[in-house]
Structures are given as C-alpha cells and as structure tokens.
C-alpha cells in the first residue's frame, strides 16, 4: 500500500484527488493539507511514502516545504503539482528534491501513474514538460539569474497590472524600451506572448 499526503490550497482539487484515489486498492491518502505549514505537520505525524504538493501555497510554498521534508525524511518521495510549466519552476522543484512534476491540467490518471512511479523509486514528469535541460547540467552549475535588474523591475510592474505606457512613465523610459524588455523576458522565460507574461508576473512570487 502506498501512503500519500496531499497539499493543495484549492479544496475542490483535493476532493477530486481524494475521490479518485478512493477506489485504488494500492494507494491510500493518509493526510491532507491546505498550506505548507500544515503539510509539514501532516508529514511529521503520519510519515507518508509520497507527498503530492502544490507549489504556490500559503505560509510555506511547495519548494520550501519540499526542501524541509527531504531534509528530515529523505526517503519520502515528492511530486510537484502545479500550473507552472516554466523550466525555472521545474528546475527549482527538482533542485529541492522532488521526484515528479505534474501539471494541474493533466488527467487525473496521470496522478495515479506518478504516485506509483515515484513510490517505486522512479521519476515522473508530465509529458508536456520539457525536461531535456535536466540532462544538460545535472544541477552542478549554480543557476545564474535569468532576468536582468530592469527586467525584474518591469515584471513586478507588469504584475501590478500596469500597461507598457505606464511602466515607461514610472521608469522614465520610452514605451519601446519597455516593450523590448518584455520581448526579451518572454524569450528567456519560454513564454509565448504578452498574456502569458502577465499571467506569469501575477503568479510569480518565487525567485525564478
């Protein structure tokens, strides 16, 4: 029997997973948490074999929680469950010690597959995530900052819902300068357009 703890701040998703796993004979959910602090508490009390955790959670986020859990219980396998598909998010989660990475838009059957795989000591990555970078630099090289200072500042302003013209006014630059920085960020972050940059800026509270 594989014991699992689930951490996720959206209760409906927790309920859905619960419902799915109810009929699986080899998997049992032994704990649930709505934030990172609760997750640590559940893990310490119940010692599950597998933890399925969101990245963006109140109090302690999934990346920090994963680090803490792996430090205390290296044998526990962790699967990230997230809407972020950017390389940096995946990289940080795996750097923290996760063995699997699932996207929230993936079918629930993948959740089962992932749990079984990591419980067996394997890894499981969502098929839509490009993990080729994992082979390239097996986390030896310290990760350099991807975005320049200006880009980080502009990203914050984008996240505040400001248009390029407003950002340009705040920064005393021209609109086209802001647009170029945006374009470079979209390239660097592997996004596909302006809308995605806004979404990214809104979701971002991590050190990507």
């Amino acid at each position, binding site marked *: 029997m594989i014991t699992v703890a689930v951490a996720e701040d959206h209760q409906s998703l927790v309920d859905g997973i619960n419902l799915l796993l109810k009929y699986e004979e080899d998997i049992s959910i032994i704990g649930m948490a709505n934030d990172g602090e609760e997750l640590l508490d559940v893990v310490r009390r119940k010692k599950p074999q597998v933890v399925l955790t969101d990245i963006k959670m109140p109090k302690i986020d999934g990346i920090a929680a994963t680090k803490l859990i792996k430090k205390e219980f290296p044998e526990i396998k962790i699967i990230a469950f997230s809407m972020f598909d950017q390389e940096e998010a995946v990289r940080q989660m795996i750097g923290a010690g996760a063995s699997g990475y699932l996207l929230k838009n993936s079918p629930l059957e993948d959740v089962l597959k992932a749990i079984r795989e990591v419980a067996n000591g394997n890894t499981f990555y969502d098929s839509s995530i490009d993990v080729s970078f994992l082979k390239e630099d097996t986390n030896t090289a310290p990760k350099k900052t991807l975005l320049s200072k*200006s880009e980080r500042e502009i990203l914050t302003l984008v996240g505040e819902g400001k248009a390029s013209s407003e950002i340009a006014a705040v920064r*005393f*630059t021209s609109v*086209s300068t802001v647009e170029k*920085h945006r374009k470079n960020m979209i390239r660097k972050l592997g996004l596909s357009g302006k809308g995605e940059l806004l979404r990214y800026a809104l979701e971002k509270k991590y050190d990507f």
Partner: protein
Amino acid sequence: MIAKQGLLPAVQKLARNASVTSALNIEVQDFGLNERLENTLEISVFRILQELVTNIIKHAEASEASIAITQHEESLSIIVEDNGKGFTPLQIQKKEGMGLNSIERRIEHIEGTMEIDSTPGKGTSILIDIPL
C-alpha cells in the same frame, strides 16, 4: 580574445576590467548564445559594446550598468543600461559627440538597429537589435 574564446567571455572581461579601472560596476546578463556567432559579427558586437562602455565611463557618471544580450531565433537583442546622469538624445546627435556616430555606423554595417532612450537624471538605455 574573441577569436579564441567567443563573444561572451570577452564581454565579461570587458565588464570586469571596467569595474577594476573605474568606479563602474557592470553586470552582464546573457541568454542563448550557446553557439558561436559568425566571427566578424562577434567582433563587431564586441567593438560596439566596448565603445558603449567607454561612453558610460567617460560621460555618464554612473555607478551601475548592465549589458543584457538575449539571443532570439533570428535576432540578437543587446540592451546596455546605466544609472548615470542621462542626456537628451537629440542634442547629442546634432553635435557628433560621444562616438555615437561610429557606433551607429558599425550597427548599420551589420544591418542592425539602435535606439537611444535617455532622460536627463534618469540614466540611459541603448537598445540594439541585430539580425542573425
């Protein structure tokens, strides 16, 4: 240096040297650039950056600057920023000061474009796009 090691190490060295010989701290940010560019292009880009850094040291009175080189599929974006005193671009172009003309010529030569974005007291951004 460039011919042996490529553009990026040369630019990083340029930045380090500037930090040693002046009070200017230059951050270099690169993205892409996993493969060498065409040799003459690398040299042109390096010369342009050299002149831009010289300008910052000579005129900008800046403490911080950054060189961001981002490789896109079909172009290279270079953004050089400083937190110096800035200037009014139109006035500078009338006088031929600051070696901007020679930078412009170099950029034209490699079919690139350059934009100067500066406000007095608010630093300067130079944005260069070069087709690959």
